[in-house]
């Protein structure tokens, strides 16, 4: 079981050697980009909580009726609800799973875990981080000092408490996590996939390096010249990236640093609807916002001009003195 989860190093390297890592343009449409994600795959999700969530990619995966995805994210918010509620995922690896602290417990998560047998696999926040980092380093595990002594550790036979060979101290070894595909949303990148992230980067760099494929959505595609004028801002190198999609407001209704804050009216009404009825409320929400719109822009129109503008005003104000 555990062996099946950990990719042997030789297979990781074989997968890498087969990837086309040349400097080439990778811009595709949203529908095409998610073809890298097949049913049953391990999918790593960038951002954290309500920030830089790759919502447009999740939206498209759900529209294309993907199934049995094993998803991982450092902290998961309404995207976790939607992945469970749509049937796209039955297994979510994360450290915290609710819509947001303002709304208490997620009734959607509770329904699927308590009565539908779906798996919320809980690690500490650092535990998720060390798993992505080990994956990014090409080693099978990393040692850490948290989780020891807790029941979080006891629930995780995948993690191994050991005595340090140098000092004899107790340490916890956590296994590498190398997702089949990572979904990451950024503020800007070029057509090759050199990605610049403003503000909080969360675990996205480790996630991009660990994954066997990376799909980027970006608020805008800029020229390679523009990237080269500020290479210190580039956080993900092009050779990690397999597809680039330009999707303005690609995290809506969540936030994207410097551009828009969470769309709290939409979030509030979403939470009220799905927590009142995690089955029918979710089905109606998915129908209205995910399956019926013909395009991402149509979805944004449903969230509404006023809410997008208001979220943008708050988002940009981070740069005000």
């Amino acid at each position, binding site marked *: 079981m555990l062996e099946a989860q950990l990719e042997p190093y030789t297979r990781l390297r074989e997968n890498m050697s087969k990837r086309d890592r040349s400097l080439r343009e990778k811009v595709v449409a949203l529908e095409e980009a998610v073809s890298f994600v097949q049913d049953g795959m391990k999918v790593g999700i960038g951002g954290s*909580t309500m920030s830089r969530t790759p919502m447009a990619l999740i939206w498209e995966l759900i529209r294309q009726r993907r199934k049995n995805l094993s998803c991982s994210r450092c902290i998961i918010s309404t995207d976790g609800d939607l992945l469970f509620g749509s049937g796209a995922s039955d297994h979510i690896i994360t*450290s915290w799973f609710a819509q947001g602290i303002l709304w208490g*417990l997620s009734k959607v998560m509770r329904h699927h875990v308590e009565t539908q047998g779906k798996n919320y696999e809980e690690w500490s926040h650092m535990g998720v981080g060390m798993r992505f*980092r080990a994956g990014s380093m090409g080693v099978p595990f990393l040692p850490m000092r948290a989780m020891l002594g*807790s029941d979080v550790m006891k629930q995780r036979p995948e993690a191994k408490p050991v005595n340090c060979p140098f000092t004899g101290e107790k340490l916890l070894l956590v296994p590498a996590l190398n997702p089949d595909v990572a979904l990451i949303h950024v503020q800007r990148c070029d057509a090759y996939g050199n990605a610049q992230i403003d503000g909080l980067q969360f675990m996205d760099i*480790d996630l991009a390096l660990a994954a066997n494929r990376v799909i980027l959505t970006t608020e805008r595609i800029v020229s390679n010249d523009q990237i080269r004028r500020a290479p210190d801002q580039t956080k993900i190198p092009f050779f990690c990236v397999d597809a680039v999609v330009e999707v303005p407001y690609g995290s809506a209704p969540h936030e994207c640093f410097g551009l828009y804050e969470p769309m709290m009216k939409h979030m509030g009404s979403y939470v009220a609807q799905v927590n009142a009825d995690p089955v029918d409320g979710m089905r109606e929400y998915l129908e209205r916002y995910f399956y019926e719109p013909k395009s991402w822009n149509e979805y944004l129109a449903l969230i509404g001009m006023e809410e997008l503008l208001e979220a943008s005003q708050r988002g940009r104000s*981070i740069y005000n003195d």
Partner: protein
Amino acid sequence: MTDAQRYTATEILAILSSRQLRDGQVVFAGVGIPLLAATLAQRLRCPGLTILFEGGVVGAFVEPGKLPPSTNDQRCTKRANMVLGSADVLLLLQRGYVDIGFMGGAQIDQYGNLNSSFIGDPAAPKTRLPGTGGGNDISSLTNMIVAMKHEKRRFVENVDFITSPGFIRGGESRRESGLPMGGMFRVITELAVFGFDERTRRMKVLALNPGVTREEVQDNTGFKLDFEEDVALTEPPTNDELQTLRLLDPERLFTA
């Protein structure tokens, strides 16, 4: 009587928590009351307080009226000194740069263990709670202050599930579990301020909040409490504290 109406339970929670912090400390704060209390301390008494958030923020200086809805939102970065990756800011705890971890709690026990994962049997839970987030990391690696509501169902003899470790089963059990550093330092509620016995590691009352009796604290607690020999009486919130707090959270996002 009239004094109790000057402030809400969450306001006194935030104010008493903020009083536990000292200028110059590095504090790792969770969202809600901890974020608010750390920011309050920074504005009132501790201008040199360095606040860290798990989203990757070092040296936060949150704006009044613009409290972030989580510790992973852009508002957390306003006027900060630095942003890091989330794993890297958590690793600062492991290296030992952090003086105090500061969190809320859903359920706590006599040894200061916190549960935010399961009510009932984890194999067939009555309620699946949101989980640890950075809580387990913070409480495993540094000295903790917990601010939480005081209810009998939240103060239980032994938690159903140890999400964030306190002193585990008391005595030396935390150290023996592989956690040689840190541990529960203070628990703050709307009724009292608690510490932990040096030897047994059980929770004990250090100070009573204004107008609160020993019986009231015991009656709202699901295990037998010890009391410090000279239980102190906490000074009520000052006008300055209340005014500054209300400026920080005018919409009562976290102090309703």
